């Protein structure tokens, strides 16, 4: 890969300073997407700012009806965390299904959410639970955060520090993996929080993770898989590639929504 300068700041202020001083700075968190991209010469940052040395960037805290997960917390640590398992078992299960064990040992929630890969799992949980993305500058509601594939509300140099998930009454995720990459061909996160039913779909849409209003409406009156049996999303706006046609994705979103509801 091309050369880049590595920084390991011990504070957010130093991280922000390193990013702003860089010609083209990139945050390095788990690196499980960024490093392969750099190896293929598809990304060529001048500077890499590793946020894993910053105190408090990793770990899980619980309080005020929310589970807050530090941006540098690995998928494995989320999957294995007792608090996440107790309060948001659907999220723990989702984390346990990302990539493979070695990737989960390095990849982080902040990196995944900030990257907003249209086939990544975490964005479905963040949007499905109506979580809040906490940065060094502000708090961003999930509904405002995701803005199309690989696009988020983050400003240049803004650092995600944590994701705050409301504790749900019930929540679950179901995905159909791409046989090759094991990313989601489609993934559906369903959640019932305080009076709110949310359904977030990843992997399937041309604009990345999105909510499905029809499924939410049907589940709001009856949170059961029977209630959404006939609620088939439109093919319109679904991705189509060698692994899945738009029609297939639309169909599978419905199947996965039912499975998620049954598991919630």
């Amino acid at each position, binding site marked *: 890969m091309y050369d880049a300068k590595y920084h390991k700041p011990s504070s957010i202020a130093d991280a922000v300073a390193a990013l702003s001083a860089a010609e083209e700075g990139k945050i390095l968190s788990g690196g499980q997407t960024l*490093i392969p991209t750099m190896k293929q010469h598809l990304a060529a940052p001048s500077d890499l700012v590793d946020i894993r040395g910053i105190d408090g960037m990793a770990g899980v805290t619980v309080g005020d009806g929310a589970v807050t997960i530090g941006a540098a917390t690995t998928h494995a640590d989320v999957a294995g965390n007792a608090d996440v398992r107790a309060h948001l078992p659907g999220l723990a299960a989702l984390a346990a299904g990302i990539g493979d064990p070695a990737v989960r040992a390095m990849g982080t929630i902040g990196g995944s959410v900030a990257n907003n890969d249209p086939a990544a799992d975490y964005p479905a949980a963040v949007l499905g639970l109506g979580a809040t993305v906490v940065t060094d500058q502000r708090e961003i509601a999930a509904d405002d955060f995701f803005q199309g594939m690989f696009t988020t509300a983050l400003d240049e140099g803004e650092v995600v520090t944590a994701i705050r998930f409301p504790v749900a009454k019930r929540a679950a995720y179901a995905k159909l993996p791409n046989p090759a990459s094991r990313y989601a061909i489609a993934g559906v996160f369903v959640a019932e929080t305080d009076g709110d039913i949310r359904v977030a779909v990843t992997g399937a849409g041309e604009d990345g993770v999105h909510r499905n209003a029809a499924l939410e409406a049907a589940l709001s009156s009856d949170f059961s898989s029977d209630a959404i049996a006939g609620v088939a999303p439109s093919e319109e706006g679904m991705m189509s590639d060698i692994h899945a046609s738009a029609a297939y994705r639309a169909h599978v979103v419905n199947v996965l929504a039912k499975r998620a509801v049954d598991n919630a």
Partner: protein
Amino acid sequence: MTNVSMTVNGKAVSRDVSDTTLLSDFLRENLRLTGTHVGCDTSQCGACVVHVDGKAIKSCTALAVSLDGSDVMTVEGVGSARELHPMQAAFKKHHGLQCGFCTPGMIMAGIDMVERYQAEGRALTADAIRHELEGNICRCTGYHNIVKAIEEAAGTMSGMKQAAE
């Protein structure tokens, strides 16, 4: 160039490397530990799996400089030809390797999964082994004998752990 110091297979090492040197290249080119292999460029094949601070990771997807101060274990460190690690012995006994290229990663992933399951008190069934091997691709064995080898090594390692306690 940045100085990187690590403990690799129990020995302190220190080298000056460029910031973008991958751990796999650091091991193979700088330390000449060529048992760690590279079989893909998309972090999927797992031939490069090593342990860093006790966790299995893909050494092709980590920068050496970011692991300054770490404790790294490679396939060269888990056992020797004279004294094989139970996982190595099980791969030999059950013909869990053919060309040998994916084998170092398989052995390191195998040891890691056994240790994680033991720590969590979970049973490592054949199905669980297959699932845990999602990030390790073998083109020769069809996995049948790899699964058998890890199953047996899990038993041996569990017995050794109990004996040690």
